[in-house]
């Protein structure tokens, strides 16, 4: 029997999302067969940034917390891998990954605890400032090479069969698997009671409190989860590049990932991934055009904010809407 409470549209759109997801994973899975080495590495980088953008989407797009310090968690996990890696052997992924995630989670917990009552524009400034504190910590102390950074000499090993992450192709598939996993994990969470509560908090926090939700605790959980997932991306980035430096957690990095979300459209998981792809490809294109690519990127961002209020995804939607409405008006014509 059809459940009248559940609008049919949502189950239908759920099926569409699943199809697109399967299609996207398939496309990325067969990509290495047709791509050169350079593009393999580029797509690996984009997939890692997609995970980073997804983690921020949970915070900004679903819980309504605009953070300008998200790179801190990305960078801390990267540094954790670099510091935990033995000098010559390959670090064991099963030991170093949990360590790196825990480091990001703890930093997220501490920062959120300090800013627990701040919201809105305050939250933006305070997250930026604390991220900068972490930046200076790695930049000024000799703990991890100061401003020069340090090397991760060997990629982590998975210790499963003949998988060798030192090979770019194997590493590519690991990152793809992690991206798919994070995407599905977030998809599940957002439909869960926890995810619904976050969306309620974003829509109207006062009402949620009046209903009985301890909203601060929900936001804390979201912040730590988002920080941990950003750490996952940071760990993969450090493993891929074999090198970490303070720029990984500089605030430009935080601004960049926010820009990805806006480009793709926040509050949809696909938006985060589309945003990461479009941003990096755009950056590649601009930097092929001119040494001063930041001028083009900056102007593009300014224009995007002025003319694309709902991101590329929003642009796609409004084009589709216009098509549909013009199509239906065509029907009326004899």
């Amino acid at each position: 029997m059809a459940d009248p409470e559940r609008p049919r549209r949502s189950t239908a759109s759920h099926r569409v999302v699943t199809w697109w997801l399967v299609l996207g994973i398939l496309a990325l899975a067969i990509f290495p067969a047709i791509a050169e080495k350079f593009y393999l590495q580029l797509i690996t980088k984009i997939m890692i940034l997609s995970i980073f953008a997804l983690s921020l989407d949970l915070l900004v797009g679903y819980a309504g917390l605009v953070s300008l310090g998200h790179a801190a968690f990305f960078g801390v996990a990267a540094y954790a891998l670099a510091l935990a890696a033995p000098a010559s052997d390959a670090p064991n992924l099963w030991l170093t990954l949990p360590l790196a995630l825990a480091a990001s989670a703890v930093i997220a917990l501490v920062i959120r605890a300090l800013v627990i009552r701040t919201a809105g524009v305050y939250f933006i400034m305070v997250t930026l400032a604390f991220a900068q504190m972490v930046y200076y910590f790695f930049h000024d102390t000799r703990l991890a090479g100061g401003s020069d950074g340090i090397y991760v000499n060997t990629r982590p090993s998975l210790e499963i069969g003949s998988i060798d992450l030192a090979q770019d192709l194997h590493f590519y598939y690991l990152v793809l698997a992690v991206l798919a996993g994070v995407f599905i994990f977030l998809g599940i969470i957002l439909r869960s009671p926890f995810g619904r509560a976050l969306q309620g908090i974003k829509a109207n926090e006062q009402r949620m409190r009046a209903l009985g939700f301890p909203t601060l605790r929900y936001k804390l959980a979201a912040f730590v989860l988002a920080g941990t997932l950003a750490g996952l991306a940071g760990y993969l980035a450090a493993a891929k590049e074999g090198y970490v430096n303070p720029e990984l957690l500089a605030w430009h990095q935080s601004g960049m990932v926010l820009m990805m979300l806006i480009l793709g459209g926040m509050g949809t998981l696909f938006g985060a991934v589309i945003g990461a792809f479009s941003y990096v490809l755009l950056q590649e294109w601009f930097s092929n055009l001119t040494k001063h690519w930041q001028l083009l990127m900056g102007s593009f961002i300014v224009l995007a904010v002025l003319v694309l209020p709902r991101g590329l995804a929003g642009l796609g939607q409004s084009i589709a809407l216009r098509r549909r409405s013009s199509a239906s008006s065509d029907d009326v014509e004899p």
Partner: protein
Amino acid sequence: MEWLIQILNSVQYGLLLFLVASGLTLIFGIMGVINLAHGSFYMIGAYLAFSLAELTGSLWTALPLGIVLAFALGLVLEILLISRLYRRDHLYQVLLTFGLILVFEEMRSILVGDDVHGVAIPALLDASLPLTENLSYPVYRLFISAVCLVLAALMYFTIQKTRLGMMVRAGASNAEMTQALGINIRWIHALVFAAGVALAVFAGMIAAPVSSVFPGMGNQVLIICFVIVVIGGIGSLKGALIASLLIGFVDTFGKVLLPELAGVAVYLLMAIVLLFRPAGLYGRP
């Protein structure tokens, strides 16, 4: 006596920061806009001082020229871009002004290059005040402190005592009412923004002779100014002044006492203030 020098340096640095932070906090308090590009104006000021001083031969002619240019830049930016952000989410304000930073930095790179420069102290003030037999203090730093104090007093007077200041304060508390009284809020916003830009540019110009002129200087100042606004309380000039001086002391003495952790010290101060006063020293909770 060395302490006296550090104290004078702290005050001078704090007052300089106040010039930048006051614009940031006013723009937020009155228009509700978070402006990441505010630090870029400080950078632009320093590079203007360098270029104009070379062009005209003296910082004294460069200063008024720079202020006029800054005010014009502020008006143009407000009218073309910033005014479109007033009713929009903070997220978009962050992004647009983030884009502006990239534009300003790259323009600077194209026009002046990426080198570090120095600006000569004007001959008139290029002297030292002897404190003891072998310690002395540069007159130019005292000049910076004095100018900043005069500007702070002027700002206070303008906002508290003049008709313009009254309109600004009314605009901050109730934009619609001000509009109904026949005050053109559009012009007040443009004026406040341009004044904020001019202050930051001016700060960058007079700071240029004591701190070298380098590419990343804008962002460094921006983030410190955010810390100041957070500590002082958003929209509060008084809070910004006190927080600026606090930061001046913590940063200067941090570098002397704990050089390894100097970069972190100001953020620790912010963390401590937030623990006890989540809305800052003079913020409305």
